[in-house]
């Protein structure tokens, strides 16, 4: 699908030498940047690659790669619309066939992974290549609980990290993302997220994963779960709402995922009891709000869950899928204020995390449970479609 070119040509002629791959690197600490440059040198031939970076080249780091300096910016925990616009601009200027976007912490990606991301675009005709990290079970929990299962069920995409901060893009994919970024958002808005996987599905572009090792994911500056969950889940809900005409059509389910290495359970027990206590407190106080969003059956199951002790706490996968779908529908219908809605989701998410951690502690591999949750979301998709089209008033 052809997309209009939203990029203005303002790059000096001297910097316009062609390159097969443009690597766009967002701001990161100097030592990380030095290591990443070394990995890129190991992965690519200098003739075919051009690096555009928001970092200053350290004096000690001698490289034979072509480097273009971009305006400096602060460290990011997720990609911003302006990054996509800049990356697409660079790619057009240098007639690149593939674009790699790498963010803070990308120095932990091996040269083979970097090469794999580029090769997926250059040789395998993939428009969007996303790394599949092997993260410890206690990290990326919002992704495991909501982003991955919901994206998989709704958009029939098998990408495990839909909000990845390292991407391999074809030129047309980069142009599409830049176009969406320019059309939908003010470039320097701080709390706007773009969903490349959803855009790829909407455009009918091919997306695939590249196996990657563990990676240190940058964390948001504001560590408060309230604001993170509201931002990320709210953004995904809004994107799903905007693409409703697309995902309601029947789609083929994604192929069975490749297995990845399980990362060992870290030392130190997580504070499951505190999360269960937070859920119980919410179950006592937020019934009035939950009853506006959730059907009586879900409320009853939540009541039963709240009676469980912390050590044996579990949240059934089908209940969690139903809860997320009901919150998504309430988000769309504006049943209550959206800020309130996402705030009321937090204790339920913490309950899911507590159950997930208990399962892992009991010996169930984390990835198995996450895949089971994603399967529950897929199985319950007809409910979402039905209520999306004909929202009944179960609590009227």
């Amino acid at each position: 699908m052809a997309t209009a070119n939203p990029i203005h040509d303002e790059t000096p002629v001297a910097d316009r030498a062609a390159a097969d791959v443009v690597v766009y690197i967002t701001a990161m600490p100097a030592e990380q940047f030095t290591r990443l440059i070394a990995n890129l040198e190991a992965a690519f031939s200098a003739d075919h690659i051009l690096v555009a970076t928001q970092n200053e080249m350290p004096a000690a780091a001698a490289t034979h790669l072509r480097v273009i300096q971009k305006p400096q910016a602060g460290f990011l925990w997720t990609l911003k619309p302006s990054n996509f616009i800049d990356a697409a601009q660079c790619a057009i200027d240098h007639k690149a066939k593939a674009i790699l976007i790498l963010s803070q912490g990308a120095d932990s990606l091996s040269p083979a992974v970097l090469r794999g991301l580029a090769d997926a675009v250059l040789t395998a005709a993939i428009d969007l290549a996303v790394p599949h990290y092997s993260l410890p079970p206690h990290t990326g929990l919002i992704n495991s609980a909501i982003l991955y299962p919901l994206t998989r069920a709704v958009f029939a995409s098998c990408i495990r990290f839909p909000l990845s901060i390292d991407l391999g893009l074809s030129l047309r994919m980069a142009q599409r993302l830049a176009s969406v970024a320019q059309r939908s958002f003010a470039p320097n808005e701080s709390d706007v997220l773009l969903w490349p996987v959803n855009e790829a599905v909407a455009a009918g572009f091919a997306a695939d994963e590249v196996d990657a090792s563990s990676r240190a994911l940058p964390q948001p500056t504001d560590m408060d779960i309230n604001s993170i969950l509201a931002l990320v889940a709210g953004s995904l809900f809004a994107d799903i709402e905007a693409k409703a005409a697309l995902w309601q059509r029947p789609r083929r389910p994604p192929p069975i995922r490749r297995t990845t290495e399980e990362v060992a359970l870290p030392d130190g027990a997580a504070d499951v009891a505190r999360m269960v206590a937070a859920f119980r407190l919410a179950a006592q106080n937020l019934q009035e709000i939950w009853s506006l969003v959730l059907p009586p059956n879900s409320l009853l199951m939540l009541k039963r869950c709240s009676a469980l002790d912390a050590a044996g706490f579990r949240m059934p996968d089908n209940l969690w899928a139903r809860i997320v779908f009901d919150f998504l529908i309430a988000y769309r219908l504006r049943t209550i204020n959206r800020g309130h809605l996402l705030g009321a989701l937090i204790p339920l998410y913490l309950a899911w995390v507590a159950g997930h951690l208990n399962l892992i502690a009991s010996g169930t591999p984390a990835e198995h449970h996450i895949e089971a949750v994603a399967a529950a979301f897929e199985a319950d998709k007809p409910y979402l479609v039905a209520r999306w089209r004909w929202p009944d008033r179960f609590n009227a």
Partner: protein
Amino acid sequence: MKNLIAITTQQASPNLSVFPTYSEDATIWHHMSEALHQSLYRVLTLLIAVLPGILAFFVSLVIFALVGMVISWILRRCLTWVKFDLRMARKTGTDWAPTTSPTLILARVAFWMCVFLGLIIGVSAFDTSYATGAAPPISLLPYLTHAVGAALLLVAGILIARFLARSVLIRAVNAQLQYARFLSIGVKWLVLVLTGAMVLDHLQVGGNIVGLAFGILFGGIVLALSLAVGLGSRELVSRSIESHLEHERTHIPEETAGAGSSIRHF
């Protein structure tokens, strides 16, 4: 009394013939009756002057509401027939909820525009009849305006109270405060009391008493809270702060420690 009036009349005019006392009595009753009749006449005149206006207001409202319903129904049928929702969805690329589909929105807009028109015409009719027939000075219309303003104030106050109560409840629950519901109810009632005072003030009911009572009530609550925190619940507050700090001490390293030993939500 009768004797007193008779004596007084005789003293005041000795040359005049003295009327029998029952005649004086009849005059007083006559005056009273006259006064009552005039009062009744004034009230009936007022009612007769205002009643057609009120009737015209309601008739206009009902007729236009019915017309609005008919127009809305026809519009809904026509738009459904031409598949307006589908065309709009294709054109804008937006998915519309069935409860807020373009057809329903247009039908509702048409209905409420008719109702609004009826309201304007009704008020205009009422105003005309009031202006022409209201010989006696009445302050009904200005008071009605105040009443409408007070009603709007009340609705806004209730909405704000509910919004703030929910905000406080959710934030407090997510902050794991055990007294979340108490806080939420407190905020709700503070806003409702404030709204009540504003409504009464707007209606000019109670005069300064409302403001004074409200000031005393608020001041009393603040003073009581200050005393409770400063004297009575000093230990409770210090324990609460200590437990909060303890929670922070255990909470921060958990979130910010290395990847191998922490929960990372993102």
